[in-house]
């Protein structure tokens, strides 16, 4: 079953003093996320990730198109009982304690009164805030606020969870815990849609990712498919005193360490590189294909923007 579906969802803001100048925040977006998937939404700052999430949460009104969550239109308030949302750099009512805040959100989400206390205590324990349950949020560190944010997003046991930059502001341990939590949610069959620009997290966690840049979807698919679509490279290692002429013309990245030379060349130039080494009578130590990372795919998609519009297609 489809968990999240956007159909030509778009947003244009009217800016300027007379509000007549359009600023496109999101071009028509068509995206489908299946139930139980962990979906990464990647893009640089200002790409349109947060706008998309706000549109899905009903915080921003779309200029065009529509979106459905679990088959229901996002305008229907009832569907939100099935949604959990962690905004970017969350800020909460700082006059409340962590326990009071979760109680308030549980009430708003319609959690049954008899289950409320048990769920809140379990959640505080799960995010490591049991000892700080009665401390006002104004005394919380950024990392603790992020934990409260995660707790409020999953407190009511939603089916679809949206996380906007969930690792932002966390130390390495905190990031590890969030990753574990997302893994756990996946094992429970939840759908997790999270935006990030930390590609290693996306690569490690996501079933599928989408890359967005300048409000436009640049690519979407399984991580393995996307990385294999990037033109491959090979690494050659040999011993020598200098990089032979002709390597730079092949677009090689060369590094020398003592007598050892390491060159990474595009896969299509492999034969030409070997020919140069044979001609120079140099002995090849190894030749290894270089696995493309999500980062390379991401850089390729995002850097298309730097080229003229015609060249980008």
């Amino acid at each position, binding site marked *: 079953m489809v968990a999240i579906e956007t159909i030509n969802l778009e947003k244009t*803001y009217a800016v300027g003093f007379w509000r007549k100048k359009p600023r496109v925040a999101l071009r028509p977006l068509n995206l489908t996320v299946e139930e139980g998937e962990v979906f990464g939404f990647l893009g640089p700052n200002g790409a349109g990730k947060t706008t998309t999430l*706000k549109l899905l*949460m*009903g*915080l*921003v*009104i779309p200029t065009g198109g529509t979106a459905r969550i679990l088959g229901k239109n996002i305008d229907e*308030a*009832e*569907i*939100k*009982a099935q*949604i959990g*949302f962690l*905004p970017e750099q*969350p*800020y*909460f*009512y700082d*006059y*409340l304690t962590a326990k009071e805040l979760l109680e*308030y*959100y549980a*009430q*708003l*989400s*319609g959690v049954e009164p008899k289950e409320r206390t048990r769920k809140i205590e379990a959640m505080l324990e799960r995010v490591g805030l049991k000892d700080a349950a009665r401390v006002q949020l104004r005394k919380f560190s950024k990392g603790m606020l992020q934990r409260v*944010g995660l707790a*409020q997003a999953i407190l009511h046991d939603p089916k679809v969870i*949206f996380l906007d930059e969930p690792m932002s502001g966390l130390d390495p341990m905190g990031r590890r815990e969030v990753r574990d939590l997302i893994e756990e949610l996946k094992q429970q069959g939840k759908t997790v849609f999270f935006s990030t620009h930390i590609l290693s997290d996306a690569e490690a966690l996501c079933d599928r990712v989408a890359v967005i840049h300048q409000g436009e979807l640049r690519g979407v698919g399984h991580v393995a498919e996307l990385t294999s679509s990037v033109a491959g490279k090979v690494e050659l290692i040999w011993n020598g005193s200098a990089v032979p002429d002709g390597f730079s013309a092949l677009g090689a990245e060369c590094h020398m360490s003592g007598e050892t030379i390491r060159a990474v060349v595009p896969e299509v130039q492999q034969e030409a590189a070997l020919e140069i080494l044979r001609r120079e009578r140099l002995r090849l130590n190894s030749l290894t294909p270089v696995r493309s990372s999500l980062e390379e795919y991401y850089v390729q998609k995002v850097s298309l923007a730097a080229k003229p519009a015609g060249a980008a297609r």
Partner: protein
Amino acid sequence: MSRVVRIAANTFREAVRDRVLYNLIAFALLLSGAAILVGQISVGIERLVVVNLGLTAVSLFGVVIAIFIGIGLVSKEMEKRTLYTVLSRPVRRWEFIVGKFLGLTGTLFVNTFFMAIGVFAALLYVSHKFQSSDAWILVALFFIVLQFLILCALALLFSSFSSPLLSAVFAFSLFVIGSFAEDLRGFARMSRGLAQGLATTAAYLVPNFSALNVIGQVAHEQPISAHLIAYNTAYALAYSAMAICGAVLIFERRNLK
């Protein structure tokens, strides 16, 4: 409906934790000081002075709270983004606005209740006993609460589309103009042509706070007619409801950037 109540309760809790009710201490000091002073320097008009001063203070303290909290009810939540985690739940935007309104009016009601106790205590101190005409003070207090209803609704309306500073300016200006609404209506009756049209429109558009101010009358122990009580109640409820509807209509279309 329960979500409206939850939001109202949270708004009330915010006001209490932000020490809004501390104004009661200032009020208590002001009133007890005034009662002692009046008891010493005035002869025969102690009641008049205490009622006048007490009710005016109740009104002014409440107006300041209504405006300064009301203008931040929506804009502060948007600025701090606390609204995101509320509206991403099964909470409709109108429920949020109505909940906020009820929370603030509830805060003002509690505040006014304690101030009213203070006024009656000061009155007892200077008069040594209550008399039947003191019951009209309750009507004056009720009218003050009606003023707060209108002001809260207006502050919320302005807060739904403009900055806190501008909202404060708008709300306070309307309070001042509305306090002279009867004069504005008199001016409209005397004017001619375009000026009359404009003055009449303005006179009926601004909230009629002057009709809700009966402090002078009750201080002079004059009764308030049942007709005025019914009319003012209906007027304040209708005016507040319209302002809240306006706030909801605007807020429903707002993008939370």
